[in-house]
Every structure is written in structure tokens, then in C-alpha cells.
């Protein structure tokens, strides 16, 4: 079924209210318009509302049913929507601890996401930097950081990238005591990363104290590919913000995020949300819809490019994580 190398794309960004769900929906609709079969997953386990944006008021089945084993196959939680080629998996609604899935629940979920019958799966992540959220983001071969030009969003987007990267490193090297001691010299994981100001410093310490792991860490950094997407752009000054994040990531995290594009601010979106109409479905002329159409083409193109992290290598968190 799949003709793409990257099938699962996560959309995260740390801050709430920057349009993660709307962009996920818009990208899904734009991909469907290009003839692609898409499944949208509301990964906001606790504050799910993607279904509301899709005009579904009362979802009869959600991720919660799967996590609590009321439904065996994730595929059986797909809700068909107004758009023929888009299936929706609704998020859990903050009940029975679904917002904090256990390790085995996460493994079961991640294993089945890749097997879903779609060419593209878009995972709309919630706000914040909880470990579960970072794990889902890190497990996706396609990672999109969404942010708005607001200063708070800019800071949260960088914070999200940094948290996700350090989480990735600490999971990858969870059994390597030397690396964990360098990362968290003060004690347990979950506390602030201590002693390490930049990833370059981390590399230098690893080279000195655990030279055997140096190449592995370098490879992890080289493989950690992320895309930046800025939403609600109102001016040329706003367009400079992705470069700010890119530059800080390069200097302090040894990462080289790629700019995926931008979506201009468009009041049409607010009107669509308030009337529970699907955006950009049925929109004739809209700046945001045009931008989303371009982004969908870019996603298809990027999915086919060879990336070092393939979709087949979805790894599960190594051990139980608490947010």
C-alpha cells in the first residue's frame, strides 16, 4: 500500500494554541486532494480535539479503547470522515489514565501505527514536553516542529527540540552508565540536564570518558532530522524566526533543522473552526490553503528522499517512562 519511505509524520511544537491540530488536518486534506490515503491520529492524550475540527462531535471509538484493550487492533479505531481518503483516530479524553500510557501500552500502539492502511499517517501531538509525547515524536521518522512567530512559541519550539533530542540520547544510551552520568551528573534522569551546556560539550566529554560511544552519538545526531514549519505568519519579520531556531539548534545542539515552509495567518481558518467546517476542504481561495497544498507536495517529496532513519526502524522507548 505504501509508496513512501516516510509514512509516519509527527507534528509537535511544545506550545498550545499554535495550530498543531489545524495544520495536521490541513496537511491531511491537502495530501488527500493529491490522491493520497491519509490517517490522522490525535496524539493529544488528555486534551483531544482533532475530531471536533473534523466535525465529529461524539466519537464512538478512540485511542482510549485501544489502550484499554476494548479494541484489539488500532485499525479498528479508525473513524471514516467527510473526506473520502482521510481516516481519523481520535485521541483519548483524559479518562482512566489514558493520558499517561504505560510502557506496554506505548509499545503496542507504536507497533500498530506503522501497520495502519495508509500512505501517510499524521500524528498530532499535544502541548508540552512530557516524556510520552517526546517518545512519540522521536519514534516518528518524519518530525515536524510547528511554531508561531510569538516569542513564547519560539522559546517553546526550541525547548521542545532540545528536550526531544536529550530524551532521544538518554533512551538510546539508557544502558550506558558513563553517558548517563555525563548527561545527568546530579542524579536521576528527569532532572535537568546538568553540567552540559551544549551538545558539542557533551561530545567532547563522551570522547574523553566513553570514546567507544563517540561514533554512535555522532551518528545519532546526524540521523536526527527535523523540519521547521511556521504558522500564522503576518509579516516579513515573522519569516526570520525559523532561521533563529535553526541557528540556535546548529550552534548549541549540533542539529541542522530544515525549513519545511510557512503558513500565512488567515482569518478564514478561524471562521472554519467556529463553524466546525473542515479546513481547507471546500475552500476556493485561501492563502493558508495554498500554503498547505505546497507543504503537502513537499511532504511527499521529502518522504521519498533517502533518510538515514527509515520507517521500518521505529524504536520503542527502552523502559518505562514517566512524564
Amino acid at each position, binding site marked *: 500500500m505504501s509508496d513512501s519511505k516516510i509514512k509516519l509524520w509527527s507534528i509537535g511544537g511544545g506550545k498550545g494554541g499554535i495550530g498543531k491540530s489545524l495544520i495536521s488536518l490541513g496537511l491531511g486534506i491537502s495530501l488527500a486532494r493529491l490522491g493520497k490515503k491519509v490517517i490522522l491520529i490525535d496524539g493529544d492524550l488528555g486534551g483531544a480535539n482533532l475530531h471536533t475540527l473534523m466535525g465529529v462531535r461524539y466519537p464512538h471509538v478512540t485511542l482510549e479503547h485501544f489502550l484499554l484493550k476494548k479494541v484489539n487492533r488500532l485499525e479498528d479505531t479508525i473513524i471514516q470522515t467527510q473526506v473520502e481518503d482521510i481516516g481519523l483516530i481520535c485521541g483519548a479524553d483524559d479518562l482512566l489514565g489514558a493520558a499517561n500510557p504505560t510502557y506496554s501500552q506505548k509499545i503496542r500502539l507504536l507497533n500498530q501505527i506503522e501497520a495502519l492502511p495508509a500512505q501517510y499517517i499524521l500524528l498530532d501531538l499535544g502541548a508540552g514536553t512530557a516524556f510520552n509525547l517526546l517518545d512519540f515524536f522521536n519514534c516518528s521518522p518524519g518530525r515536524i516542529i510547528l511554531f508561531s512567530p510569538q516569542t513564547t512559541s519560539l522559546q517553546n519550539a*526550541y525547548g521542545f527540540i532540545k528536550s526531544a533530542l536529550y530524551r532521544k540520547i538518554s533512551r538510546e544510551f539508557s544502558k550506558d552508565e558513563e553517558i548517563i552520568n555525563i548527561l545527568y551528573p546530579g542524579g536521576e534522569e528527569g532532572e535537568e540536564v546538568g553540567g552540559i*551546556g*551544549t551538545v558539542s560539550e557533551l561530545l567532547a566529554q563522551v570522547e574523553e570518558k566513553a570514546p567507544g560511544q563517540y561514533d554512535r552519538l555522532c551518528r545519532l545526531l546526524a540521523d536526527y532530522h527535523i523540519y521547521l514549519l511556521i504558522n500564522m505568519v503576518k*509579516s516579513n519579520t515573522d519569516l526570520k524566526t525559523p532561521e533563529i531556531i535553526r*541557528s540556535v539548534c546548529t*550552534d548549541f545542539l549540533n542539529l541542522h533543522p530544515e525549513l519545511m515552509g510557512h503558513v500565512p495567518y488567515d482569518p478564514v481558518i478561524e471562521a472554519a473552526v467556529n463553524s466546525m467546517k473542515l479546513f481547507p476542504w471546500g475552500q476556493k481561495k485561501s492563502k493558508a490553503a495554498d500554503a498547505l497544498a505546497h507543504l503537502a507536495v513537499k511532504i511527499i517529496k521529502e518522504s521519498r528522499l533517502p533518510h538515514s532513519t527509515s520507517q521500518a526502524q521505529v524504536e520503542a522507548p527502552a523502559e518505562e517512562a514517566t512524564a
Partner: protein
Amino acid sequence: MSFDDQHNHPKTRGSSRDPSDVILQIGRPGKATRQFPAVIRNLTAGVASLEVSSPLALMEWEDLKGQGGRLRVRANGNGEPINFPGKVVRVRHFARGRDKGLLSLDLILEQPTAAAQKLLNEHIPNRPRDIQGLWERWDQARQPSAQRVALPIRLGFVGVTLLFCGLIMHPGGAGPHQLFAWIFWLMGTLGVLGQILLLWRGVKDSS
């Protein structure tokens, strides 16, 4: 020595400087200038938030608000201090124990250029380097480039000059003078309109 005189300040990063590197000088009308060691706690939107614990400052803290002052900092911990003039816009006193206290002041800087903010940022103790890098880049992105500021001014000047030339050549005159007068008026009008357009775009972008 003003900040603008110093072009080659070092680009140190991350190290927390000795607070004594930062001195706040407060000028008082008819009285001697006071100076206190200060710690820069925050710097945003051209306002430096300072902490002062000098007993003398604590005694006179109610007189400090509204006074002109300047921050004197050393670019690399030594050398000639650089001055950042400004005005104290907020003072709050916090009691600590029986006889100790702390003043929190906001000094609005007269010239909060990106370079000035970068240098002052270097004096904020215990700042995460990456977050500092983020805000420095953000400050730079918000600063209009010199070329962008100068272009509307030049365009407006040329426009007004052409309009003036057209007026001298008198559009109501005869022969080639009339033709040139109209051409000057047309070009001058376009120049002034261009200036207005560029200024409007600048305001729109910065908002």
C-alpha cells in the same frame, strides 16, 4: 568612552561575570552623582532590570525613580568601561532580614541597539547559553537594518528636491522649461510616495 566608540568588543559567551563589572551611576540635580555595584537580572525591550544591594542606594531608594543614569560595564572584565545611558523608570525595595535589603530597578536604555544588548547580556549571571543565543538572534532579527532605515529617508529627500526643482522651473512657464518642470514634479511625487510606502511597510513589519 561611549558604547558606539567601541567596535571590537570580545564575543565571550556563557561565563558569569563578576557583578562588580557593572556599575550603576545615578545623576541627581544639584547633588553629587551616586554610583553603586549592580547585577543585571534581565534585559528585554530596551529595559535593563537591575538589582542593587548597596546600603547607600537602599537609604536613598525613593529618590532614584525618574532619575537619569547610566550603566558602566567592562567589555571583557577589564579595559575602559563602556557607558549605557538611560533613565530609571521603576524602583522597588525588598526587605531582607533586619538591616539588609535589595533594590530592584528598571533602567530604560537610550540606545538599545542589538550590539549594546548583546554586550549587556554577557553580564547577566547564570544564564543558559542557548537561551541567551536565542534571544540575541531574536533581538537582531527585530532590529531594522541600517540600509532599510536609510532608504526611505534618501528617497524622500530626493523626492522633495525634485519637487522643489519643478517649482523653480515653474510648470506654468513655456517651452522645454514647462516639460522639465512637469517631469520633476512627477518624479518628485513618486519619490515621496515611495518613501511613504516604505515607511508604512516598515511599520507593518515591525508590528
